[in-house]
């Protein structure tokens, strides 16, 4: 395949394209667009700022700040381990630092940073103007920041978590961790986990429904593929972790017995749930990093990527197989050997798609004409280090070896090769690569090279000796060791390496600030890159693209002379969108596969309510640490008010006739009150999250059941199925009534809509009342044993989601009374109905499991 791009740094071929793209747009239009899209000024404006570049940079900056804090924790640990029998740290503080280090890097650095990158990059990369839910983005940023600060506030209260980043019970249970430290860990990090899921939803919808016209599923940039798979993995994995954390917090604060073996629970249940999250978590970090690598390699190898479909397959395979590997973290807990081999096999198999990724990279470099500038150096570093981490990964997937090196420094070395080599190096590559786009200046090359070599040498010096230490038997998480075991030199080398690595990172920080003022002006496309973000100016305008690009190939800037040429209808549409509307923030939705235009919709503007909602949420979680329930309720009330304000209807400027004319001319809908496509998909994702949460509880139920010889335990009477049968019939009938109501609105029969909604509400309410009365009649509480705990919780979650569904019905009923819905506008009805279907499915399965499976076994 021939080389398509100029040498990075030599020529900026695509610069003419950004000018041509906007040449047909008058200057006044740019000014009007900028006025409409820019963030509001002042302090209050800063709290509301929701532009994707502002928000993405804030998330990344905050995550990087936590990275530095986590790094300081690591350096303190390395000082302690530099020599034997050191007393720099006490055992207790060492435990605290390794807990804070791991938790910070996993929850507050890697995932938020990668999501921040996505928020920043995706609208530009996909050729659109914004993310679909900017206000949700604001809310998520603030809860991430508040959650992280609350976590570190544990130092102020001298309640620093010390049970490791995995918080295994029984150590993390109230008996062995009676202080508030674990509550800080569970609740503060819980907030940031909610944030991760919310960003995940936004990323999925942006990639599925907000790509430039013509960017079909087979032309998507590989970074978009990687983020799509990652975001789905986040939704599944983080929801499971939230449920695991909920169970542990209930055990600690409310006396349930999920992880308590004396009550029929099992500490191993936590390990299962935690690693169902924890193993995919590694790939949640790795996949976006691979996405960076696949964007950067072709540009610097100056040729197209070898094996695009193979790489997509490999990304998918890694994302999906990662959910089948969780028990390989549990090889030493006593699972049956055949079970273990299931997981060993899957763990080994994930090496195949990982290998495909590396081979695709190597083949691209081998057949290209590589230019070794700083971003590419970090990619090369990634390949070397990730291969080493991958090989030790295959080694620890093997049961006999894992049993030998389990909980030794060999494992520490392995996962740092994967996480620093496989994730942090590509992150640095991405930082050097995209910095010029968003700052307008290139980062200093000399400082960049120094950074790379210090990081590469320092990293290897720090972590390679740890393989040897592990094989020599040095366990992880020990705060000191006696001399004379042959460990001293390796530990000292490791500490020196850690400081060299830190020096490299310090240079990076210096470079960030230095280059912002003194860096060489970048131009629009300093690397001669192929993807759409380089078609904008550097830094890009607040609205991204005035005229959206039309994509015909996987490398639009290399292959297309013009970015606005194409199907006349689409060309006319994107040109018109460059001129109208100018008074509201318009973005385009496209179809998921072929990226054909569907709607012009209004993206939400700045509002203070997301910030207030974030304050409410953090009050809820923070007050639960001290069990201040009144404060918790206050926080919930703040959230409720904020959510109402958030979704309040606002007057929108614009002329209805103009909209109709635009629709008639271009064959797309104009949606000033939000996009039905986006909202429908968000509803489906919300249902998915609810069902994943329930599935985690179903898994817990069956696991606890296996751990108990009798089910229900002999001390608990078997629950009669009369109530759930009645409630289930009512729930299904409510769904049918909801369906009937929606059919009514489609034929503009408002009476039928109201009657259907009232019927659905009454039937649903009946189901809830019946099931609550079933719970009230039980003669034991949820603290009685693990069976009782899971019985109450699963019932409670099903009931709570049904109440949420009823509130939605109530809201829709209110709208129906005000005549808000018609055959032209029925989105609210559809959302309530879809959500109720999800609730019905969860309800039937949950109560089927609770009441029927004891009979069957």
């Amino acid at each position: 395949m021939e080389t398509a791009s100029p040498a990075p740094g030599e020529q900026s071929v695509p610069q003419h394209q950004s000018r041509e793209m906007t040449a047909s747009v008058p200057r006044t239009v740019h000014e009007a667009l900028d006025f409409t899209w820019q963030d509001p000024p002042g302090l209050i404006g800063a709290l509301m700022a929701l532009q994707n570049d502002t928000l993405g940079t804030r998330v990344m900056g905050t995550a990087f700040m936590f990275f530095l804090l986590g790094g300081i924790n690591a350096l303190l640990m390395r000082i302690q381990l530099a020599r034997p029998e050191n007393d720099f740290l006490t055992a207790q503080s060492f435990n605290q630092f390794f807990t804070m280090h791991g938790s910070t890097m996993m929850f507050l650095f890697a995932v938020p940073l990668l999501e921040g990158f996505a928020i920043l990059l995706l609208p530009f990369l996909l050729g659109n103007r914004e993310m679909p839910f900017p206000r949700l983005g604001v809310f998520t940023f603030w809860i991430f920041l508040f959650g992280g600060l609350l976590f570190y506030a544990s130092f102020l209260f001298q309640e620093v978590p010390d049970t490791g980043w995995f918080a295994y019970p029984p150590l993390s249970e109230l008996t062995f961790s009676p202080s508030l430290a674990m509550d800080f860990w569970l609740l503060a990090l819980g907030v940031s986990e909610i944030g991760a899921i919310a960003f995940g939803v936004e990323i999925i919808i942006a990639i599925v429904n907000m790509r430039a016209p013509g960017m079909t599923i087979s032309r998507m940039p590989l970074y978009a593929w990687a983020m799509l798979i990652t975001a789905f993995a986040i939704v599944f994995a983080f929801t499971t972790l939230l449920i695991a954390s909920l169970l542990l917090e209930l055990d600690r604060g409310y006396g349930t017995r999920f992880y308590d073996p004396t009550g029929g629970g099992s500490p191993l249940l936590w390990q299962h749930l935690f690693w169902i999250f924890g193993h995919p978590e590694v790939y949640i970090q790795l996949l976006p990093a691979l996405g960076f690598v696949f964007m950067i390699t072709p540009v610097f190898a100056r040729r197209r990527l070898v094996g695009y479909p193979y790489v997509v397959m490999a990304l998918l395979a890694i994302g999906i197989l990662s959910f089948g590997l969780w028990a390989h973290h549990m090889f030493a807990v006593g699972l049956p050997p055949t079970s273990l081999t299931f997981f060993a096999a899957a763990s080994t198999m994930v090496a195949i798609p990982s290998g495909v990724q590396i081979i695709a990279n190597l083949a691209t470099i081998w057949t290209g004409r590589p230019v070794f500038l700083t971003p590419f150096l970090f990619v090369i570093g990634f390949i070397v280090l990730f291969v080493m981490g991958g090989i030790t990964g295959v080694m620890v997937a093997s049961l006999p070896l894992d049993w030998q090196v389990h909980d030794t420094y060999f494992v520490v070395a392995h996962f740092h090769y994967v996480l620093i080599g496989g994730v942090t190096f590509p992150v640095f590559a991405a930082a050097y690569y995209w910095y010029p786009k968003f700052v307008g200046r290139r980062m200093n090359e000399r400082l960049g090279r120094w950074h790379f070599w210090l990081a590469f040498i320092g990293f290897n010096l720090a972590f390679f000796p740890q393989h040897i230490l592990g094989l020599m038997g040095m366990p992880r998480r020990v705060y000191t060791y006696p001399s004379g075991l042959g460990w001293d030199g390796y530990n000292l080398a490791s500490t020196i390496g850690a400081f060299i690595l830190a020096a490299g990172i310090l240079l990076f920080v210096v470079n960030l600030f230095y280059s912002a003022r003194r860096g060489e002006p970048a131009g629009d496309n300093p690397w001669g890159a192929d993807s759409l973000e380089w078609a904008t100016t550097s830094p890009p305008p607040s609205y991204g693209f005035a005229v959206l690009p039309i994509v015909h190939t996987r490398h639009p800037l290399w292959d297309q002379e013009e970015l606005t040429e194409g199907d006349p209808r689409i060309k006319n549409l994107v040109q018109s969108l460059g001129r109208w509307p100018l008074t509201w923030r318009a973005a385009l939705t496209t179809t998921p596969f072929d990226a054909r235009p569907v709607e012009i919709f209004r993206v939400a503007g700045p509002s203070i309510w997301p910030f207030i909602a974030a304050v409410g949420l953090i009050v809820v979680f923070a007050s639960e640490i001290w069990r201040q329930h009144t404060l918790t309720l206050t926080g919930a009330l703040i959230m409720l008010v904020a959510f109402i304000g958030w979704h309040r209807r606002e007057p929108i400027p614009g002329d209805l006739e103009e909209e109709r004319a635009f629709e008639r001319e271009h064959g797309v809908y104009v949606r000033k009150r939000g996009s039905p496509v986006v909202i429908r998909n968000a509803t489906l994702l919300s249902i998915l999250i609810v069902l994943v949460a329930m599935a985690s509880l179903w898994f817990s139920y069956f696991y606890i059941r296996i751990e108990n010889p009798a089910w229900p335990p002999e001390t608990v009477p078997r629950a009669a199925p009369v109530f759930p049968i009645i409630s289930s019939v009512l729930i299904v009938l409510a769904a049918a009534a909801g369906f009937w109501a929606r059919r009514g609105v489609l034929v503009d029969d408002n009476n039928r809509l109201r009657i259907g909604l009232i019927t659905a509400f009454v039937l649903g309410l009946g189901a809830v009342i019946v099931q609550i009365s079933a719970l009230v009649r039980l003669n034991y509480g949820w603290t009685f044993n693990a069976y009782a705990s899971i019985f109450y919780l699963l019932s409670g979650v099903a009931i709570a989601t049904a109440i949420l569904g009823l509130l939605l019905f109530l809201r829709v009923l209110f709208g129906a009374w005000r005549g808000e819905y018609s055959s032209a506008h029925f989105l609210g009805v559809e959302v309530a109905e879809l959500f109720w279907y999800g609730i019905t499915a969860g309800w039937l399965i949950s109560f089927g499991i609770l009441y029927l499976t004891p009979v069957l076994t």
Partner: protein
Amino acid sequence: MNTPASTPYREPFSPGLRLLLAGPIIWSVYHIIGYFLVEIACTRNLPSGPLLSVTAMTLIVAVLTLLSLGGIAITGFLSYRLMRQADEQQTGVQEREHFLGMVSALFNIVLALTVLADGASLLVLGPCGGAI
């Protein structure tokens, strides 16, 4: 909903996506059920009986392995056929289905190997790996 004079494009559902999802679903179901059956068979807390015996569970897992392999093989074949039928050089639906078919066919090869490796553990280690 508002209807523009010129009806917006409505995208037909993709057969390629259906195939792309089928393989992972088969593998996920197999992996979870297989794991739970082995866990149940090899735990000492359950009553013994013809349906819950270790041998019976092993047999069920073995049959599940074969069924999953069959399902993945069929999905892989259908994906390959889709890829061959759709023309890569065309734009739109043809190009997309060719791509999805290819990705799905490749993915099913990896999944088949994974199921084979999972199932082989039963043959190599025997029921419960000699744990009981």
